[in-house]
């Protein structure tokens, strides 16, 4: 009997205008959405490749240890084609620093024209959430009311079929109609992935695509059951459709916005600028200590000021020089030995402030996330972004790994005491630095050559000790340095997150199933 009812509803749905319209909408919207998303992904990949090449070239070109400073470029996730999540809000770059922990990704994520970012666009999962939920309601809102209005409900129930079986049959009939539509959307999506040469998915990613499909089926089930429940509560189809549409707008558009608004209103976070000011406060003693230390070393070495033939330097331990006083080398050896560990210590102090700020952001995001669980579309959205590696959790874990990588990198440098060696700032043989007297003579010789003309300058330069001229030595061998590696599917928290959302959707479906069954048992014919 259940099969008979399901078959009847399936056949009637297939020949209905709503099915034709639904299929047409999917045919139009899904490919268009995928074209946009795949195109965006290609742009992101291009940005990623360009940035990676630039960073790698710079990294491999480092001539001194202080310049061996890797940048982590976030590779866009191919699965984000299905669900962009918060990826649009994120940058793609982190440069490791001794004096500060990386907080979030910075830089651009893809678009070359920032104006285009302002235009409204939907990803695959959002389209599924909107279109399929609407069609689930459109196919189910009159499941009982229409049969009642057409007197067919009485004609059916005059036979040896109980109401529960009839209800299950109706439910399966509607689901049989919607699942092919859903399947069409996913097959189209997968075809787009397979036909895009820039996109390659591994086994774990295909598993996630399958899980995304199952989540979408469950999501559709929830809305079908919701439509059936409203239908079982209504006597007329007109009442049922009005209630369903109002609820649909509430669940899909109002609840998510209310959740964001509530999170911003009730869970306040520190302003980014304030956090930066707080970091400056933490850092202030460091600058004083730095100045004192500098003076102390200068005094110890009995020098008034530093003289280098070539010099490049900056904050966070950056230093590269060649030629000059031997005392300048001694100064830098002493100063780097003090500076780098101190920077690392201060980074730990600053991290307490940064973490408080980050915890505030996470708290606000969690509040919004939990409040949004009132809407099945948001649950599905969270599921989808988690499965597609574009949820906030993914980026938080990613940044944790980046911070761990920073620690590994620092440990590597610290264990080898690289900042205590002359190679931290120069590749010159220390013996080729000169005394104060010799340096004064060289300065005089240079001034004379300068007055005599280019040929004299050339001759002067040729007479300089080895390594004084910039670029006389090649890049360092960085093969042994730690390399960043991250596999998103190794995240166990993501599966717990997905499982919890899946269970929640299942729970809502079961509650709706029970309520509808109970209600339909007393449905007035």
């Amino acid at each position, binding site marked *: 009997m259940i099969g008979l009812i399901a078959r*009847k509803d399936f056949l009637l749905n297939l020949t209905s205008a709503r099915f034709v319209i639904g299929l047409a909408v999917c045919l139009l919207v899904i490919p268009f959405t995928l074209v946009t998303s795949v195109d965006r992904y290609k742009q992101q990949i291009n940005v990623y490749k360009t940035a990676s090449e630039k960073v790698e070239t710079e990294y491999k070109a480092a001539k001194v240890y202080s310049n061996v400073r890797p940048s982590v470029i976030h590779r866009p996730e191919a699965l984000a084609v299905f669900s962009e999540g918060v990826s649009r809000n994120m940058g793609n770059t982190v440069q490791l620093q001794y004096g500060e922990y990386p907080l979030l990704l910075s830089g651009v994520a893809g678009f070359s024209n920032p104006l285009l970012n302002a235009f409204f666009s939907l990803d695959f999962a959002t389209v599924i959430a909107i279109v399929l939920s609407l069609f689930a309601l459109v196919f189910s809102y009159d499941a009982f009311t229409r049969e009642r209005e*057409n007197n067919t409900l*009485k*004609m059916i129930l005059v*036979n*040896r079929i109980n109401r529960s079986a009839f209800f299950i049959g109706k439910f399966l009939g509607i689901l049989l109609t919607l699942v092919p539509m859903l399947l069409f959307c996913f097959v189209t999506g997968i075809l787009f992935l397979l036909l895009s040469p820039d996109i390659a998915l591994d086994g774990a990613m295909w598993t996630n695509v399958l899980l995304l499909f199952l989540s979408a089926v469950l999501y559709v089930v929830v809305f079908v059951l919701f439509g059936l429940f409203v239908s079982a509560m209504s006597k007329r189809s007109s009442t049922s459709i009005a209630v369903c549409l109002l609820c649909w707008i509430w669940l899909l558009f109002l609840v998510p916005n209310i959740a964001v608004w509530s999170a911003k209103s009730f869970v306040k976070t520190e302003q980014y600028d304030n956090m930066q000011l707080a970091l400056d406060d933490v850092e202030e003693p460091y600058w004083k200590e730095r100045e004192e230390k500098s003076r102390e070393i200068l005094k110890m070495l009995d020098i008034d000021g530093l003289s280098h033939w070539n010099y490049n330097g900056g904050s966070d331990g950056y230093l590269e020089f060649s030629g000059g006083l031997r005392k300048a080398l001694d100064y830098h050896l002493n100063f780097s030995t003090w500076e780098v560990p101190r920077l690392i210590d201060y980074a730990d102090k600053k991290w307490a402030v940064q973490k408080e700020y980050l915890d505030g952001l996470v708290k606000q995001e969690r509040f919004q996330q939990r409040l949004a669980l009132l809407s099945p579309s948001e649950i599905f959205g969270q599921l989808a972004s988690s499965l597609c590696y574009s949820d906030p959790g993914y980026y938080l874990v990613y940044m944790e790994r980046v911070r761990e990588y920073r620690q590994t990198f620092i440990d590597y440098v610290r264990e080898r005491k690289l900042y205590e060696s002359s190679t931290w700032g120069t590749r010159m043989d220390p013996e080729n630095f000169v005394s104060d007297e010799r340096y004064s003579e060289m300065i005089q010789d240079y001034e004379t050559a300068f007055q005599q003309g280019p040929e004299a300058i050339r001759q002067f330069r040729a007479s300089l000790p080895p390594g004084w001229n910039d670029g006389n030595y090649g890049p360092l061998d960085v093969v042994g340095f730690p390399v960043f590696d991250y596999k998103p599917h190794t995240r166990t928290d993501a599966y717990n997150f997905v499982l919890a959302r899946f269970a929640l959707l299942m729970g809502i479906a079961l509650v709706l199933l029970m309520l509808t069954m109970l209600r339909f048992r007393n449905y007035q014919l």
Partner: protein
Amino acid sequence: MLQAIELTKRYEDGQLALDALNLEIKPGEIFFLLGANGAGKTTTINLFLNFIEPTSGQAIIDGIDVMKDPLETKNYISYVSENVMLYGNFTARQNLDFFAKLGGKSHLNKEDYYTIMRKVGLQEQAFEKKLKTFSKGMRQKVGLAIAIIKDAPNILLDEPTSGLDPKSAAELMQILKNLRNAGKSILMCTHDILRAKSVADRVGIMKEGRLVMLRDREEFLQDDLEQLYLEYMQETVMMP
């Protein structure tokens, strides 16, 4: 056989829709239940079909109490509603096929359906047409075909001639006579006194949930049924 024993229905709002109805419709009998709107005719049918539960009393179909074994009684009953809409995107045959299978007749083939549709007077060219193109009379015939194909011993009809043209109504009556001759118990609720006079074996008039008049064919033909009905209706209208 259909039996109502002290069958009473009082709705939640306190309205007494049916007041201790006692009725028996034997095999091979057409019983017409007449009455104004709200008199309790449809409530009676709904009680026999177990669509609503009685407040007290019993509805019995072929010896089985509807309340005690509702699913079992469904094997012995067919129903034709006032306005048969059915499924507009199905053809007449597809509608028939669906309801036949629902009624447990899964072995029937296309020719069996055609035979039934011919029996109820549906034209051949309509058999494979979608029902949304049908007139009300044609839909009623399909509804009747559905009731017949189930081959249940008892048939309940709720205002089946409402809105039908005279020719279609007359055809419907002829089919009912044939069913009666085949031994079916037929309970038909209607306002249509003329049809009652032409085919009913017995008639009952209901008013405010009570069966206020019961006549067999010889009696109501002698007593002028129209006059009796109008008198009861007038009393109803005059009631405060």
